[in-house]
């Protein structure tokens, strides 16, 4: 197994704030990592650097052995927690957009996922509810055969039924040749799919390990462990 993601002493500073302070992390191929932490702990900053839309102040982050750039963007499928699709688009336009720009995009899979998510390809992006937009974004992101999936709060603002649907989509569409990083506050809902977890606090990884080993070692669920670490 090789490491898809390698992070060493990653720092990101803004004018008066240090968002990341020497974060270290590795992620093996075929693993799903839960990156867990409270608001403002540096999760999104970390993911944005990996996605190539934020640049580190110092330290090293390598994806498939490369610094974030044009190549890594072609193998990273990133789900941001923003509404980034063009408002003029219909769902089918968004699918065409991804097909045009990503050579690893599987159009057939996208339409299968749309059906699973009960989304109409002719609906306008503007007319979708928050939950539906989240499902659409996830459809687009999971329809790529990427080496690394980065999902920032995929369950944010979504009702419990939709959460189950989204989790099923993630599990069913994950391949062993890929890896995934997921951030969430809804640890209890999602912890069953994590192979690894990393707790981040004030820009530092304070605890990382195999999810199952942590559960048996501490005799606690990841959700309980999360509450203990960040109480």
């Amino acid at each position, binding site marked *: 197994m090789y490491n898809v993601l390698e992070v060493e002493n990653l720092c990101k500073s*803004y*004018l008066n704030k240090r968002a990341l302070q020497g974060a270290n992390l590795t992620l093996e191929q075929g693993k799903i990592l839960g990156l867990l932490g409270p608001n403002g702990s540096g999760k999104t900053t970390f993911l*944005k650097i990996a*996605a*190539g*839309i*934020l*640049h580190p102040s110092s330290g090293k982050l390598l994806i498939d052995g490369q610094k974030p*750039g*044009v*190549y890594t*963007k*072609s193998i*990273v499928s*990133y789900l*941001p927690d*923003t*509404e*980034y*699709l*063009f408002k*003029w688009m219909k769902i089918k336009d968004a699918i065409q*957009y991804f097909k*045009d*720009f*990503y050579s690893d995009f599987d159009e057939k899979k996208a339409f299968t996922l749309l059906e699973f998510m009960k989304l109409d390809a002719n609906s306008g992006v503007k007319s979708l509810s928050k939950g539906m937009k989240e499902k659409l974004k996830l459809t687009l992101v999971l329809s790529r055969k990427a080496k690394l999936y980065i999902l920032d709060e995929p369950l944010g603002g979504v009702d419990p039924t939709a959460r189950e649907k989204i989790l099923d989509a993630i599990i069913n569409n994950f391949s062993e040749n890929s890896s995934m990083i997921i951030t969430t506050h809804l640890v209890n809902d999602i912890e069953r799919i994590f192979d690894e977890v990393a707790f981040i606090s004030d820009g530092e990884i304070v605890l990382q390990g195999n999810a199952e080993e942590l559960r048996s070692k501490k005799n606690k669920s990841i959700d309980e462990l999360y509450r203990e670490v960040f109480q």
Partner: protein
Amino acid sequence: MFHLIKYELRGKLLTILGICLTVIIGNLFLMTKVDSWQIGAPVLSGFLGGGALVVICIASLTLMSDYLYDDQGYLLFTLPKSGVSIMASRLIVAVIQISIVVIVSVSMFCLLDQGRLFNAILQQVEIRELLYFILINLWTIVSTLTFMYFCMVVGRIALKGKKVGKIGSFIIFFLLSIARTGLSVAIANLFPQMVQIHSVTTMTMNVGSMIFDIVTFVLLFIATSYLLEHKVDL
């Protein structure tokens, strides 16, 4: 890059259509008044075309600012595209949309004027000179937009807030414009060789300044592309 241009044009379609329809409807109205307003009608048509040009030029600035400050940036900057592709596609889209508006405005003016001014120009200048005129204007649009995009990107990188960033970009534009003009004048004084270009009007241009403008454009294009790819933080 073709896809970047395609989606950008699709996004701006309503803006372009809106401006063109306004020009067409405005000119159709003016055509009904040609007899009573006489010279006033073509003059107003010219103002309408000028106004449309200003609006589409402002819209061309949003080709960059929308992605620097809005969530759409997540869509553009996560694509496996180089800074050069992104920058070149912005300029090509800007030229296409400005050209469409200019063509519609000029065509409507010619219809209103029944081709009198156009014929008069054609009698006095050769086609080659008309092409020079078009090329010089295209060059002006491309080099000016490159300069403005550079200032926007530098403002975005240097100043994080949306409001502060936009005001900062304007200040950077203002200061760099002064510096650029000063340098251009200094170069023109240092190398006073001139060349005459016979366009619709005969223009005398300083060779040193022309070379300076071309070098500045290339440097700004490369710098903006680099900054877009390596320095812009969303």
